[in-house]
């Protein structure tokens, strides 16, 4: 199976975010960037499928030069080769325009399976995989926890709301968006890191999207509070004493 995993690089999870001066995005200087977590699960599923059935795993990441560190990490974890879709302006594209750029790069590879994470930790739109499938004319499934090969294609376990699941059969080629938790994530081994240096990373200039953006992010701001939160302060022991007082007299659970 030839599997292409489209991954995204995002600011690390615990980063202190501040709003950029033009309020159109966050201040990016000084941030550390890592692989988007659901994409790490997509990569893991791809590596496990290859270990069971053979084939090739290709990691694709679009973005400025900094994303090559995430591609190197994917190679160190076991991806066979990487494609860097180079562009400094992808951040201004809407979902459709970005998916058009990705689809252009993917078409010539004609993979059997295309995996992405179900959404990104930064924008959180959760649409790229579905739109990719539409543009490539392929069937798709989303919120996938597990993939199994069958005689006619694949069978996936899809997450539904409130603790329900569903199996879905799809022919190949297909596009899947992967939900977290289906597998344990592997770490890159020292051996893997060494080997990654010998693997190919191809840099391709991202095509300029043919369509203008149809939606635009115009302002970033801090959320307003929905509830009046009473903040408790002091030393840990003082805070504990105040909490006990609340638990006794207000919440009445002690």
């Amino acid at each position, binding site marked *: 199976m030839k599997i292409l995993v489209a991954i995204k690089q995002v600011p690390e999870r615990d980063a202190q975010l501040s709003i950029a001066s033009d309020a159109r995005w966050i201040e990016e200087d000084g941030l550390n960037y890592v692989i988007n977590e659901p994409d790490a699960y997509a990569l893991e599923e791809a590596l496990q499928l290859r270990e069971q059935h053979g084939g090739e795993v290709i990691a694709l990441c679009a973005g400025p030069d900094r994303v090559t560190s995430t591609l190197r990490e994917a190679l160190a974890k076991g991806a066979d080769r990487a494609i860097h879709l180079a562009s400094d302006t992808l951040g201004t594209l809407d979902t459709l325009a970005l998916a058009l750029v990705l689809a252009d790069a993917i078409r010539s590879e004609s993979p059997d399976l295309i995996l992405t994470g179900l959404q990104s930790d930064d924008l959180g739109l959760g*649409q790229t995989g579905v739109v990719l499938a539409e543009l490539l004319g392929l069937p798709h499934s989303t919120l996938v926890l597990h993939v199994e090969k069958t005689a006619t294609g694949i069978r996936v376990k899809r997450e539904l709301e409130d603790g329900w699941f569903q199996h879905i059969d799809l022919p190949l080629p297909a596009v899947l968006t992967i939900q977290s938790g289906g597998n344990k994530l592997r770490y890159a081994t020292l051996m893997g890191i060494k080997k990654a240096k010998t693997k190919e990373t191809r840099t391709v200039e991202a095509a300029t999207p043919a369509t203008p953006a149809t939606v635009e992010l115009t302002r970033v701001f801090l959320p307003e509070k929905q509830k009046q939160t009473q903040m408790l302060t002091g030393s840990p022991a003082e805070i504990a004493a105040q909490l006990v007082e609340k638990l006794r007299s207000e919440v009445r659970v002690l």
Partner: protein
Amino acid sequence: MSTVLVVTEQKYDAQKNAAISRISLEALAAGQALAASLGADCAAAVLGDSSAANELTSKALSRVYLLEHPLLKQYTPDAYNKALEQLIRATSPAWVLFPHTYQVRDFAPALAARFGQSLISDVIAIRPGPTFVRQLFQGKLNAEYHRAGSDSAPGFISVQAGSFRVEDLQPGTAAIEAFQVELADGDIRTKPSEPFRESAQTVDLAAAPIIVSVGRGIREQENMPLVESLAQALGAELAASRPICDAGWFPIERQVGSSGHTVAPRLYLAVGISGAIQHLVGMKGSKTIIAINKDENAPIFEVADYGVVGDLFEIVPELTKAINSAKS
């Protein structure tokens, strides 16, 4: 007159009776408000079940489109996209609005793409403009979105659960109009099976009066006894956010949130949980919420009654100690 079309979803009870889902009613309220602000009509679409459509005839809607077809009985993205594409081409709404459900996530982005559009998804507020507000970075920041360019095609929007109020849904009368869709077996490329639940439940989180819930802030499995002792002191049931269950430190039956349980205890004590929307929908109905988090901007504080900004590794042991000595 231009139209806002709201695509609804149904929920089935144990007897397989269909009803319009709560989040769809919220989406209808959002659709009515958007239509009113634009001087437009609001219409609804129901796919699959006529009994669910009947329920909407008492709402202020210009029309309820009923799309019935054997291939719409069980959801597939291919059938839904094809059917809705036909309805949208025939009726040319200015806006198409969806509830932000797992099903909508599965097809609506592709439907928007068919019209050369990008979906503005999981919207939490609609302001004059129209301006659509949605979250970034799992709720740490908000952003305003607008449509750009030509409006010759409809705009596509999905609204987040709990962001619009069912109580605001305007009553009225609406006529049902059957809309004929053309679908063939060959259009459907994926084959879904019946939904199932994983395993027998051994804890009943929904019935627990006190819940201590732990998130990724706990860092390591070895640190879990910290919250276990706190739960024991409080006589609380233990629960967790998704990453804790993903890591296998707790079974999934202890997960609170959109893909886990919905709880509303007397006390929900959130330890090291950031408060992503998928977690909040599962617990924000709790009577009292206490949050301990080292990040003062963590979105969990937006729903907390009492907040402690600080290191859980310092605060939780002190709290457990204080509770134990208060009890004795």
